[in-house]
């Protein structure tokens, strides 16, 4: 058994709305081991993004506990959270979220600025990452000059540049056509093969099939959790909600 990268216990999040408190996430328990490749599925509005934002330390839960790499996130101050976002995990958004006025290389290097790295190592690391996602030739271009699939690859390069062991991706292929989606999924597969833990949200079954574990959300609850083999067609089994200790390897 490897160490748990993510462990959430009784995690809940309620939004204040005009109609009162709305529970978008209720009592979610989940443990994710290092090196896993997990897909979060569920209909729109089921709380997937809410959950990812909590995992990504972008938002704080209303109830429950979240342990990231063994540390209790609730106890950390804002700077420590920023540091987690900077070094421990990389977040990939549906809408890419590149900074439009910066070259691709500068976009990729930006996390390193906040990590306090010097200019030369920033440049070298950004080049390496762009090369890894196959876009080294566009290093000096602006995001508006490349396609959506390419932008998403740059966003992944940015998420990877500080060498996190965990990638969180909220519908990374949501804005892409199926062919480009396949390319992105291949990239995620390669990263996972290198040992990087990947958590990705999707509502497309064939995208989710790339992962080796699928969890399903419905109305803010985690309703199913199943492991598949690497090819992704056979369900290994459905676990009851109470026993979510993963590690099918």
């Amino acid at each position: 058994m490897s160490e748990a990268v993510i462990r959430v216990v009784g995690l809940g999040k309620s939004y204040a709305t005009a109609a009162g408190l709305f529970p978008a996430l209720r009592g979610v328990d989940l443990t994710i081991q290092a090196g896993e490749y997990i897909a979060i599925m569920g209909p729109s509005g089921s709380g997937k993004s809410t959950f990812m934002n909590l995992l990504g330390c972008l938002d704080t839960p209303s109830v429950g506990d979240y342990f990231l790499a063994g540390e209790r996130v609730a106890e950390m101050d804002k700077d420590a959270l920023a540091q987690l976002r900077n070094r421990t995990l990389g977040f990939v958004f549906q809408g890419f979220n590149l900074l439009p006025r910066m070259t691709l290389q500068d976009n990729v290097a930006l996390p390193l600025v906040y990590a306090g790295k010097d200019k030369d190592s920033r440049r070298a690391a950004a080049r390496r990452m762009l090369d890894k996602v196959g876009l080294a030739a566009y290093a000096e271009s602006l995001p508006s000059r490349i396609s959506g699939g390419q932008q998403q690859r740059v966003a992944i390069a940015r998420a990877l540049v500080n060498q996190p062991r965990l990638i969180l991706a909220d519908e990374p292929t949501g804005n892409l056509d199926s062919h480009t989606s396949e390319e992105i999924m291949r990239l995620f597969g390669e990263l996972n093969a290198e040992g990087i833990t990947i958590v990705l949200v999707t509502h497309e079954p064939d995208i989710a099939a790339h992962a080796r574990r699928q969890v399903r959300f419905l109305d803010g609850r985690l309703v199913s959790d199943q492991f598949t083999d690497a090819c992704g067609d056979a369900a290994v089994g459905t676990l009851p909600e109470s026993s979510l200790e993963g590690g099918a390897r």
Partner: protein
Amino acid sequence: MWKAMLGEAWLAMGANRLRSILTMLGMVIGVGAVVIMLAIGQGAQYAVQQSISTMGANLFILLSGSFTTAGVRSGSSGAPTLNVGDAEAISELEGVANVAPTHQGTRQLVYGAQNWSATVVGTTPPYLEARAWTIASGAAFGDSDVRSATRVALIGKTVAENLFADDDPVGKTMRIQQNPFTVVGVLGSKGQSFDGRDQDDTVIIPLSTAQRKVFGTPFLGSVRMIMVQAASADEMATVEKNVEALLRQRHRLREGMPNDFFSRNLSAVAESEAETTRTMSILLGAIASISLIVGGIGIMNIMLVSVTERTREIGIRMAIGARQKDILTQFLLEAVMISFAGCLIGLLIGLAVALGINFFTGMVVVISGSAALIAFVVAATVGIFFGWYPARKAARLDPIEALRYQ
């Protein structure tokens, strides 16, 4: 880190060029105004200081005639109440450095075909020392010239230039009121007096000659004015009091009778003139700095707009690890940069205008190195002060709220 942030601030400024320039304009005008006002104000102060130092120190003048309670001066039509004897008696007093009875007026001078009108001062040799006149060429006249009323003259630089042009005036003869005078010396230049007169437009001749040949007073020995110089500033008050007592005694004025002369402290007048220019230059500077505040508010306004517009960008930066401090620094740096660029341009324009004023109007302007320093400090201060609130607002954004912002 800092270099990266500076680069980004520069990019952000360039991204909205027109807006950045318009924002800067407030600072340009503010700093420009301050620099111009400082240059003019300090110039005025310098000019006054300069003329005070050339006027002669610790001076007061005694004017004949008396002030009634109604403020009407009497005696100016009759015989002057002061006389040469008074002057001699005053010079005996403790703490008196120089005493010079004088009689002055404006007269026409003629040399060859040239005409020039200047202030003609009839006086005695101590006058030169009291008024700090120097002799540039030739020599001063002496007491014997006063005694025998010789027709000799010392002329100021302006007179020399206008009347004699390229000739060396020393030894030449010019006419004042038809009377030939031999120029024995040229006075060293003093420039403008604090009330704006050209002090070099002066001719100095012996008092006796002046009264007999130039002004033609029927009351020989009487004078309208006596110039007194105290030995030091500390002794001014005592000397003035003692002179008053002495003159009252000499003029046989009984207790209760008003003075038949009037004493005027020239140094005090000059001092108050200097004080006035100082106040004026501070006032000018203060008014100009109001435009700096207006410029600062402009920066704050634009930074607030910029923070709102770039909320999503801030969210993205936070999502990839920017701390509050990083966001704060970024926006503060942008504000300071706009402010600094505005200051720099304002400084240059201000200096150019100040030099232009000097060139076209001849007004004295003083450009001090401190102006640049002030501009620099002001830029940083205004940028930080007015950039602080918007930058803090940006830094305190919630990452997820900022990311959701459309």
